[in-house]
């Protein structure tokens, strides 16, 4: 024993102390758990005798059950091939192929079994719900109608607004396109004008610089008179 003690003698005794403490606590906890289990088994047995299903007793911290805010989300399972053993009628322990409930660590082979589980008392107790639903008053109903109506009106307004926005955007686009076309047309016209100018300039250049005065006068005269090409021999 002494040889096991390290350089820091106090460490070992600290550990001894803690171990002892843990042991006591564990023993105490085990005792409580056993008592609880015995009690639960008894209740389970009594429920069975009475032909009822047993659920853990409520602690008082449970919340009321509420209707789903939307359709049960099965999208996370969409597109997955789910092969289950033929005999797997209800939930299978652990994560597997199919619809998995993380709260209960159970897997179900289809959405119908899954929703049945989500509705089951076993599941509701696991997520701390009573399976009871608050009764609504006429005022609650009135309030809900108003709420839905206002939401729909608001959505309609948004739709109109987005429609207006869409029209505006389209008008801008059309204006831009029209402007582009106009610019293109202008550019084409400008190019043509420039080409024409260039042509004219060439002619002028030809006339002024290249053409030697009097050289083609005879040809010009003939052309004017409607005659041309008598052949070079006549010339």
């Amino acid at each position, binding site marked *: 024993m002494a040889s096991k003690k390290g350089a820091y003698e106090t460490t070992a005794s600290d550990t001894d102390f803690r171990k002892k403490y843990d042991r006591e606590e564990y023993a105490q906890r085990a005792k409580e758990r056993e008592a609880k289990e015995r009690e639960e088994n008894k209740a389970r047995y009594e429920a069975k005798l009475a032909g009822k299903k047993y659920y853990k007793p409520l602690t008082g911290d449970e919340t*009321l*059950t*509420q*209707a*789903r805010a939307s*359709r*049960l989300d099965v999208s996370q399972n969409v597109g997955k091939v789910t092969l289950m053993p033929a005999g797997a009628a209800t939930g299978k322990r652990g994560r597997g192929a199919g619809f998995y409930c993380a709260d209960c660590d159970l897997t179900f082979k289809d*959405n*119908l079994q899954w*929703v*049945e589980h989500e*509705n089951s008392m076993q599941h*509701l107790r696991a997520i701390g719900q*009573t*399976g*009871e*639903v*608050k*009764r*609504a*008053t*006429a005022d*609650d*109903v*009135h*309030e*809900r*109608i108003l709420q*839905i*109506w206002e939401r*729909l009106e608001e959505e309609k307004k948004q739709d109109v607004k987005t429609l207006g926005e869409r029209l505006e955007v389209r008008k801008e686009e059309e204006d831009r396109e029209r402007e582009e076309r106009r610019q293109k047309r202008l550019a084409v016209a400008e190019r043509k004008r420039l080409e024409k100018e260039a042509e004219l300039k060439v002619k002028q250049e030809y006339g002024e610089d290249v053409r030697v005065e009097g050289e083609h006068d005879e040809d010009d005269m003939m052309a004017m008179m409607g005659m041309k090409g008598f052949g070079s021999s006549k010339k």
Partner: protein
Amino acid sequence: MANHRADEKRFLDDRGNSGPLAPNGLNPATIMEKPVVDRIIDCYFWKDQCFGVNEADIVSRVVDQVHFIGGTYGDSQKPSPFLCLAFKLLQLAPSDDILREYLDFGGEKFKYLRALACFYIRMTRQAKDVYRFLEPFLPDSRKLKQKRRTGTTLTYMDQFVDDLLTKDRVCATTLYKMPKREILEDLEVLEPRVSALGDIEDLLDGEDVQEVDPDAAREDDSDVEMSNREPADEREDERSPERASS
């Protein structure tokens, strides 16, 4: 008041036992026929969208999920969301003041909410109250889609209300036999109706006598509150059913 159970188990356990009865003395758990109830509680819509629903959630569900009236539809005889929610109402057993919200304030805005409440009232209320609750909506001419086994058809609120008052089977449900209005009038349980739609209705009745029982057809309601109104009001109501219930 006590909470509801989120599911239908306890409600159906009361079948044949001593569950609270509807105002017309019927057991709400047995008003719909058992094969229909079995179809309802087996379907996915019931398990997903009717679980944990209370009287206010009914409104949300109708607005989001009910786009046609009907019982069971298609070859598979699938129960309609309308029928499922009607069954949920049988479980919830809403009071008259909640039904007024469904019919009037909600019914003006959401026609299928009014249709659902009318159907539920016809199943659970005494004859005199059925007449009083439903007759004010005979001038409501809004369109309703209807799905049957054979397909989708178009009907109108006034037609649907008229069906509820005169037919013995609507939306896969056999309606209990109500005494005719004039019998209740003779017994002085109901006051005679003053014609709201007047001559127009008489003309229409002349055209399809075989369909509409002329006695049960639209005359005015005898609701005390309504009969105090100016005739001019009622003429206007004829054109704008939304106002009829305000």
